């Protein structure tokens, strides 16, 4: 192998690319700070944000550890997303099973899906106040339609031959569902979950904007109120890190759970 292609191979590796991109972003950021020449309170350079991030990790934010803020946010996302999976997946399977149900429910889902989570949030606050209930519910409502539709999509897309083959080989209906339909639709379900995750983070930030002292969204909001732009940006970086991590987690699940496809 010659040197050029070896270099190229190293450059193409995932972590190296991520690092290169991070360096590029920081360089552009520094450049913009230098060009715009704004005070640090308005447009802080990257190293200030890094130091703020360090301080946040060490001292916490408004009487709570950084980890407890992050934990609160993660718990809300997880609870909302899991609830939407628990409700959405069975609905999707039922809709895949019965044409009648599919015809009856699809229009509702179509109607509800484009409604912004913020709109739900407004009504939920009127109904349930600003407590945890409306926070988790808004995430749930944003995700459940996506999960149900992707499950249905998976069921409808699966070739009928798979089911028929299993039946011919003597599987009963339960076995067909557990061994064929479930694993066969899993890729689509996980795809939907990935889309839903992005919606969940948006809904979370919306939910934490209103009446809470805890969570990453609260850090961003409170910081901006006191013109701590560096702290707000640090909050966004934290959000990005955990958003990307949870996204990777689902991608990993996709690889693990669908290895039957490559077998």
């Amino acid at each position, binding site marked *: 192998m010659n040197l050029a292609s070896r270099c190229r191979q190293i450059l193409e590796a995932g972590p190296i690319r991520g690092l290169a991109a991070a360096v590029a972003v920081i360089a552009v950021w520094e450049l913009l700070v230098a060009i715009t020449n704004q005070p640090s309170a308005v447009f802080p350079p990257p190293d200030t944000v890094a130091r703020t991030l360090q301080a946040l990790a060490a001292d916490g934010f408004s009487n709570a550890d950084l980890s407890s803020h992050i934990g609160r946010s993660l718990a809300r996302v997880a609870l909302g997303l899991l609830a939407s999976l628990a409700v959405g997946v069975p609905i999707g399977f039922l809709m895949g099973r019965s044409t009648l149900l599919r015809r009856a429910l699809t229009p509702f889902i179509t109607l509800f899906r484009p409604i912004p989570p913020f709109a739900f949030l*407004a*009504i939920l606050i*009127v*109904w349930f106040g600003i407590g945890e209930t409306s926070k988790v519910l808004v995430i749930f409502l944003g995700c459940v339609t996506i999960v149900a539709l992707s499950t249905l999509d998976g069921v*409808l897309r699966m070739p009928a031959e798979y089911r028929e083959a299993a039946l011919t080989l003597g599987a009963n209906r339960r076995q067909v569902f557990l061994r064929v339909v479930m694993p066969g639709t899993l890729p689509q379900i996980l795809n939907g979950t990935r889309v839903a995750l992005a919606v969940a983070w948006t809904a979370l930030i*919306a939910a934490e*904007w209103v009446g809470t002292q805890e969570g990453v969204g609260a850090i961003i909001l409170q910081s901006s109120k006191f013109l701590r732009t560096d702290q707000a940006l640090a909050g966004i970086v934290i959000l990005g890190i955990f958003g990307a991590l949870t996204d990777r987690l689902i991608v990993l699940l996709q690889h693990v759970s669908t290895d039957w496809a490559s077998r």
Partner: protein
Amino acid sequence: MRSGASYEHDYELRDKRWLDGRAGTPVLMLRSRRGRLGRKLIHAVVFAPVTYSLLSLLGLWWLVAAVHITSTDILPAPALVAERAVELTHSPYGSETLFGHALTSIVRVTAGFASGCVAGIAVGILMRYVYAIRYFADPILAFLRPVPAFAFVTVLITWFGLGELPKVMLIFLAVFSLTTVFTAAAMEALPPQMQDAARTLGATGWRLFWFVQVPAALPDVLVGMRLTLALAWTAVMGAELVAADSGLGWMVWNAVRFGQTEVVFVAVVGIAVIGALMDLLLVLLTQALTGNWRTHMRSS
């Protein structure tokens, strides 16, 4: 050319169209290849289920409100909301009437959505052809995609003040990153045989781009745009939550603050209706633009 069988086929697929509309999978091939019958079909598909779901929702809403399980402060009856909506069309709420607020929000969404789409599509196309851009953009987008644009709202206000610019920028941010991802994926999805065939027939350079790449990618890009349009509406509600004195989003939050539940419902329904209409517009645009390309591609 068409037979009863293929009509059946189309009709069967109608559920799928609803499904895939925003699920990100291209199914634009389903419609638009028929003339008059096709139009009938569109009507049957688009209007019947929507009417049915709207009517049953309204019925349910009316019923729950009528039996007084909850107070009017929690769930106002549909008639009450309609009454308030009619009233708000001529008497101003805050600075403007209902129409004024709606128009403000529509202008913001349109500006942010259009600029986000143009920039996103441009970067997505560049990612296909320029290695350096692809090299850096991929990891950046992977990081940015799960970050809600709304998180940037206060920072944008710090930078750009309280005017229209930060609001439009927020919508732009919400639309841009996802449009880029969609466009890049759509550009990659061109079957290599098609490119080879076009090359064999002598197409190069811009011809290859304009007559092969663009038609192949456009349907997927348009499907992606439907998704980002919904995001744009989310973003405008966020922008109007933080610092605004007009717009449907502002109406919602102001009404929440003062416990005017009917106004909350008026504005939320308004957002849903306008969002649905803009979505329909995008579908019609898709029809007009892509016609039957995908049909030919798939059957070839």
